């Protein structure tokens, strides 16, 4: 099976500090993957590299069946190619309504003039309502996003990502600051999302990762320390020492 995303031999240093050290990682179409690791293991930098925010010093990042290199593409071009990213803190457009937030994310032509002369169609509205249903915000559409509760903002952001219809979804600590019920719902949303696309979840919370019930990659000091089922990695003595032992 060919991989959807193939990261190999990637290294990046900031002021002499090796944030990512010869990292290799690959994920297939429609796979759900959790990435765990202690602070400073390079989880966020890894996402920055895949989404084009940070350029690595060496290594390759290959995308899709046409084996495109993502390293030469701008952030927006990578996003259009099908990589969606959710940030650690919920970043929605707080001044705008839930509807406007979702409308902006909907997969459509992104060119300035195409957007300027676009008309909101009935299908778009139906798609937005369906999405809002999926993330549990159906009755919140006309509200300003800034008024939503923290958990609702997280879901809105996930909803915006789903609206983009990415083939790969990168999710950074989705459960941070959530109540237990909100966590359960987030797990359900992510597992549902992974049915039709690849999803990478970066998470601290072990219980959350266990609930995701998927393959786990453990990062440490910028490279992969272990990979396998949650039971496999949690029983690995090295992993226990560097991560779980703390």
């Amino acid at each position, binding site marked *: 099976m060919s991989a959807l995303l193939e990261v190999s031999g990637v290294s990046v240093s900031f002021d002499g500090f090796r944030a990512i050290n010869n990292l290799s990682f690959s994920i297939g179409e429609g796979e759900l993957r959790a990435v765990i690791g202690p602070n400073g293991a390079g989880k966020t930098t890894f996402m920055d590299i895949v989404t084009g925010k940070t350029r690595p010093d060496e290594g390759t990042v290959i995308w899709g069946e046409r084996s495109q290199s993502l390293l030469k593409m701008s*952030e*927006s071009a990578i*996003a259009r190619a099908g990589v969606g990213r959710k940030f650690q803190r919920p*970043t929605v457009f*707080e001044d705008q309504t839930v509807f*406007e937030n979702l409308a902006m994310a909907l997969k459509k032509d992104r*060119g300035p003039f195409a957007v300027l002369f676009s008309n909101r169609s009935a299908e778009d509205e139906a798609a937005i309502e369906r999405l809002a249903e999926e993330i549990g915000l159906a009755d919140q559409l006309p509200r300003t996003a800034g008024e939503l509760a923290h958990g609702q903002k997280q879901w809105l952001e996930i909803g915006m990502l789903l609206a983009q219809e990415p083939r790969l979804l990168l999710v950074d600590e989705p459960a941070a600051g959530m109540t237990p019920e909100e966590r359960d719902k987030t797990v359900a949303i992510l597992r549902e999302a992974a049915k039709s696309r690849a999803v990478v979840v970066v998470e601290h919370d072990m219980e959350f990762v266990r609930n995701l019930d998927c393959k786990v990659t453990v990062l440490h000091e910028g490279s992969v320390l272990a990979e396998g089922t949650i039971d496999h990695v949690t029983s690995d003595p090295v992993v226990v020492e560097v991560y779980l032992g703390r």
Partner: protein
Amino acid sequence: MTRAPFILRHPSTLVFLAILATFTVGVTVLSEAVGLGVISTSFVKTLGMTLCFCLIAIAMDIVWGYCGILSLGHFAFFGLGGYMIGMWLMYARTETVVIDALSAEAIPPTDAEIVAGIGNQIFGVVGGSELPAIWAFAHSLPIQLALVVLVPGLLALLFGWLAFRSRVTGVYLSILTQAMTLALALYLFQNDSGLRGNNGLSGLQNIPGFEGAGQDNVSLAFFWASAGMLALCYLMFAWMMSGKFGSVIRGIRDDEARVRFLGYNVEGYKLVIFTITAIISAIAGALYYPQAGIVNPAEIAPIASIYLAVWVAIGGRGRLYGAVIGAALVSLASSWFTGGQAPDIPLGFYTISWVDWWQVLLGLGFVLVTLYAPKGVGGLVDKLVRKSA
């Protein structure tokens, strides 16, 4: 699902257009040209010029209030628009003067003699007699009108492309726009810039072909043109910002990186906004300077663009009518205070003369608005409307 027409979904636009129409008709009825003669021709000019300031203010509101780019260079585009139309006004008028003067001679003048005469008339003041190459199209009104749009538009496109592509943002971008403005002003100050150095272009209030019409009628015509252009551009900007395009623009202001990760080419959007607003600023300038009568490099100096930002801040960013209120209020107050109409305040030991103290008052007003009404005068209007609703 059908939606109500644009104008009905945005009642504030409708209210604005109604007020503007009433104002325009009111001034016409009270003018010397066709009406009761209560408003002097010079005040009609002041009002017409104020409308041009309102026009550049809404452009500034789009680029700063909506898109978050604090440009300190939009008055440069305004001035350039004035120069472009000024070249034709000055050339065409001088041409009539020269032909009149030469027609007294026994032999009819050749075309070359007429052109030489025009060159002498216009450039004698800076010690030249040749028409520089940039005046090649000055004889043609349609071409100079096209240049009103093209020259500032291309300058904005080039500048914006270089700046946005390098991801220059925030205060650094403001400084860069200011540097561009200063460089342009300094260039125009030179006598050999081809635009008469610090003399600038003058006599622009005399519209060739309308010498017999009288300034009262000409002023009123420009007042109407300014009002019409303001209405048109207000409508256009309101429409642009009402839909998804407006969402993206406001998104760029609030969180540029997030918009990028949604797949939008942020630089492209900024470039579109920067260039369109530069063009509208230039059109405002092209309407303003025939009413002012003279355009010179001092008009382009960075301070003018800073005033523009102050108007928009006082009026309230991110709402078009706020920009209009700010520009009208501050520029009219400014001409009242600095025009010597405001009574001085004798304190015994010192007399507050408003010509000198107006700027202090303006500065104080700016500080107070920033501290106590960050949404500006337009924000207060919002509050009143919400309370009554």
